[in-house]
């Protein structure tokens, strides 16, 4: 009986298994075909992910919508692309603008377009397209902050941008060049004939200006809602097909550098988080992957799957920020002591092992950019805050803190405990905070970690003043002002208004102030400085004029020294731009070209990189 059953069951079992096996085999064959990197005739399909604009269901192919399905560098072409120069955010790589000149006073920018630039429908890109685009920039509030006043067409390929009379914004050049250009034939119809009169009126004062600004906002909303039926691109590619998870971009043969573009098409994939990018890379699907945070074990799997890690500097760091209004964090010795307790190497190793490096010291500037602002002598003169519990102890005792039975007590006799605030889901921050918690607790300050359920809640509580010690991104470049505005800008209550610099307290709607640093600080060897005022001065240095960079760097040197001494934040690790390329199908990557690596692979292709094997 037993043997008969066995004899009968085996063929059935084989049949049962055959069905799913056949499905799996067919699926494998089909998915292999559909994701093949090469279409027929030796055509090469480049597969990538755009981190800044992930494909989103229902989103329009309109770059002016905050949630859009367009891809900068591929089907969206800017006049230029940021070179990510830490000290000079005006450094720009040519895009649709072949060349440009800035007047010595920095107020007039004359742009010469690429002579061969064409839209994917065969029409040439002209100065009129740029003027219509500039009008749209106004409706989207892209250029008001850079004091753009008027735009004049000089000839079919030349446009002139001028600042509002009397103003001098040192970010004007980048503020104009790093914007997208869209076809006037599609977007021009969204603008009223009187658009430039409205723009001019909005630059005045009084009720007329307010009414014009409202009109611009109304037009701006109409622009963002616009959903073009087809993608007309001035970039190297144009969207041929798109669904809610993938986009197929085909080559724009009228692109000004079409001969540089080697892949015949681009397959853009959707993603919702790091895990998807890891999966794509582990499966070998991506030819280039954007910046992706990952733990070491995942890195090993990704590299084992044939991907190569490409590293470039990144202008961002993470820090522990203090609300100095909350006792005892307003005492400089307390913040300095904590900087001596925290082992930044250990925190980075656990928190951001792959995409971070421990900050050399705490200055408000990423370590790699320090040499842009300081001489070697100045760098060596900074306090490096090595892990030194003895120094921390001495500093705390000097501030009348006491230690009994391993526990530190505040000068008022109460035990000192710390709650580190963090965000659920930010795995690197959470892992880093666990190390800090352990270090501070071992030192005698019982520390706990409090997680906000999401980033929105975290920011709300932070700006309400609910977090005395919290994780915070700092040193965001490029550009000197951007770098320090994360410490001594809006988040410290400083809001410029014309020539004046206002300061608002925590909780005021005008500023998301939670840092509450003092108005001025005394720094040994530097005297008394006002970091908020110094940071604001960075906006008015004429970077195009002679001595502009030197003037900027002198201010930056003061800010760096002041931040290093007063420690409004403890800089933990600097992020590094870790991307991945896969050389199975393509070669010629811009490795070592830090300016290009900051841009999308579409821009790499424009500059002659990325060749099919």
């Amino acid at each position: 009986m037993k043997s008969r059953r066995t004899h009968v069951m085996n063929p059935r079992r084989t049949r049962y298994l055959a069905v799913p096996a056949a499905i799996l085999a067919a699926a494998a064959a089909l998915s292999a075909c559909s994701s093949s990197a090469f279409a027929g005739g030796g055509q090469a399909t480049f597969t990538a992910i755009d981190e800044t604009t992930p494909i989103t269901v229902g989103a329009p192919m309109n770059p002016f919508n905050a949630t859009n399905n367009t891809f900068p560098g591929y089907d969206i072409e800017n006049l230029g692309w940021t070179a990510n120069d830490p000290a000079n955010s005006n450094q720009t790589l040519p895009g649709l603008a072949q060349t440009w000149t800035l007047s010595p006073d920095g107020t007039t920018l004359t742009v010469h377009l690429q002579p061969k630039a064409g839209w994917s429908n065969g029409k040439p890109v002209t100065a009129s397209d740029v003027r219509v685009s500039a009008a749209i920039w106004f409706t989207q509030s892209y250029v008001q902050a850079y004091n753009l006043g008027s735009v004049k067409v000089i000839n079919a390929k030349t446009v002139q941008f001028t600042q509002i009379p009397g103003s001098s914004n040192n970010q004007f050049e980048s503020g104009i060049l790093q914007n997208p250009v869209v076809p006037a034939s599609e977007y021009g119809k969204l603008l009223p004939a009187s658009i430039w009169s409205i723009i001019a009126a909005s630059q005045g004062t009084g009720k007329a200006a307010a009414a014009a600004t409202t009109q611009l906002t109304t037009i701006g909303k109409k622009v963002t809602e616009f959903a073009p039926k087809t993608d007309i691109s001035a970039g190297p590619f144009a969207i041929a097909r798109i669904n809610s998870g993938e986009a197929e971009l085909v080559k724009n043969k009228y692109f000004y550098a079409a001969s540089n573009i080697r892949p015949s098409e681009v397959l853009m994939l959707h993603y919702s988080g790091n895990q998807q990018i890891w999966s794509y890379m582990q499966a070998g699907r991506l030819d280039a992957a954007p910046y992706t945070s990952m733990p070491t074990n995942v890195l090993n799997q990704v590299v084992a799957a044939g991907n190569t890690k490409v590293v470039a500097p990144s202008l961002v760091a993470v820090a522990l920020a203090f609300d100095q209004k909350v006792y005892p964090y307003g005492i400089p010795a307390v913040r300095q002591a904590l900087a001596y307790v925290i082992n930044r190497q250990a925190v980075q190793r656990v928190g951001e092992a792959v995409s971070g490096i421990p900050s050399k010291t705490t200055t408000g500037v990423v370590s790699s950019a320090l040499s842009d602002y300081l001489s070697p002598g100045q760098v060596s003169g900074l306090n490096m805050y090595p892990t030194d519990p003895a120094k921390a102890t001495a500093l705390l005792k000097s501030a009348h803190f006491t230690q009994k039975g391993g526990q530190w007590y505040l000068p008022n006799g109460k035990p000192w405990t710390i709650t580190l605030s963090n965000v659920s889901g930010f795995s690197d921050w959470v892992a880093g905070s666990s190390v800090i918690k352990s270090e501070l607790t071992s030192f005698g300050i019982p520390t706990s970690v409090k997680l906000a359920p999401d980033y929105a809640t975290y920011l709300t509580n932070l700006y309400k003043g609910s977090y005395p010690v919290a994780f915070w991104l700092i040193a965001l470049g490029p550009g000197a002002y951007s770098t320090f505005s994360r410490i001594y800008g809006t988040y410290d209550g400083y809001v410029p208004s014309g020539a004046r610099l206002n300061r608002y307290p925590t909780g005021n709607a005008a500023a998301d102030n939670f840092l509450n640093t003092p108005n001025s600080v005394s720094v040994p060897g530097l005297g008394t400085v006002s970091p908020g005022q110094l940071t604001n001065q960075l906006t008015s240095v004429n970077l195009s004029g002679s001595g502009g960079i030197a003037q900027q760097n002198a201010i930056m040197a003061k800010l760096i020294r002041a931040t290093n001494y007063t420690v409004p934040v403890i800089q933990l690790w600097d992020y590094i731009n870790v991307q991945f390329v896969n050389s199975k199908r393509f070669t010629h990557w811009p490795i070592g070209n830090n300016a290009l690596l900051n841009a999308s692979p579409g821009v790499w292709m424009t500059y002659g990189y990325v060749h099919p094997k």
Partner: protein
Amino acid sequence: MRLARRLGIKLAAGLVMIWLVASGTFFLVRLMPGNPVTVAYENDLMHGMNPNQAKAATALLYGFVPRQPLPVQYGRYLWQLAHFNLGRSISYEGVPVSHIVAAAAPWTVIMVLSGILVSFLIGVSAGVLAAIRRSTKFGDLLSVSGSLLHGIPQFVIAILLAYAFTTIWAIFPFGAPYDVTIAPGWNLPFIWSLITHAFLPVVAYALSSYGGWLLTMKSSVISVLGDDFILAAELRGLRPLTVARYIARNAMLPLFTILALSIGFMFGGSIFIEEIYDYPGLGYSLLESIGKRDYPLMTGTFLIITTAVIFANILADLLYGVIDPRVRRI
């Protein structure tokens, strides 16, 4: 006439329920801390934009955040709803919520219905087998498989399948509803592409609910098998097929109620499944909108899911009367 009256009552109750849910979600989502503009700006920084780019990308968002007092917003919301208008998204800067929902809904409906159908058919068939052959090893094996799978949370099954078949053995595609290089239409490559892209999410749904169907069906069949009318039917010499029909029809009744309830469960589960498989349906949109504090999209997506569940329940309630005549007599 009686059916029409019952339908009218059910629909009226459904509408009241929808109003309650719409009102509840309207106020609840606005109690959540966070500002859509701040979140968008900081998220852009996190995704590698520099401060100037992030500022530009979010500058106009302010204009889409409602500023009126909450009661005014609520009144306006109800007025819009009465006109089948779900409002305009904040994070999509003015794109109608109905447009976003319409783009996302088909993929969730396909997945949820396929998942329910597959799990129901397999689970019910296996349940009958497990009941009939309950004294054999095969019956035990089926029961154990049902208990095990029923105990594993849906998202765990989904993650395991995703890791196995999209990462270790990259057999199935994910992250899209179909291969974008294939022209949509009634052609074999497109249909096959749809199937392969939906395969893993549907299997995850099916596996997670298969155990429930199996165990319920098994106990239901066993209980019916012991009923006097089955014994009477056998004694009267009715054909086995007729007896089987009696068993099936009576054993199915409790399952039919569960089927209606499972639609809600499956729609709820779509949040996890779609996130894990990066599948762009309603659950995914809902999750995204929560992260971005896009109140109109949150309420719109939630309302659509709730409405689907309420109407599925009404439909099931009405069909129950068709299946079980005793309900009609009440």
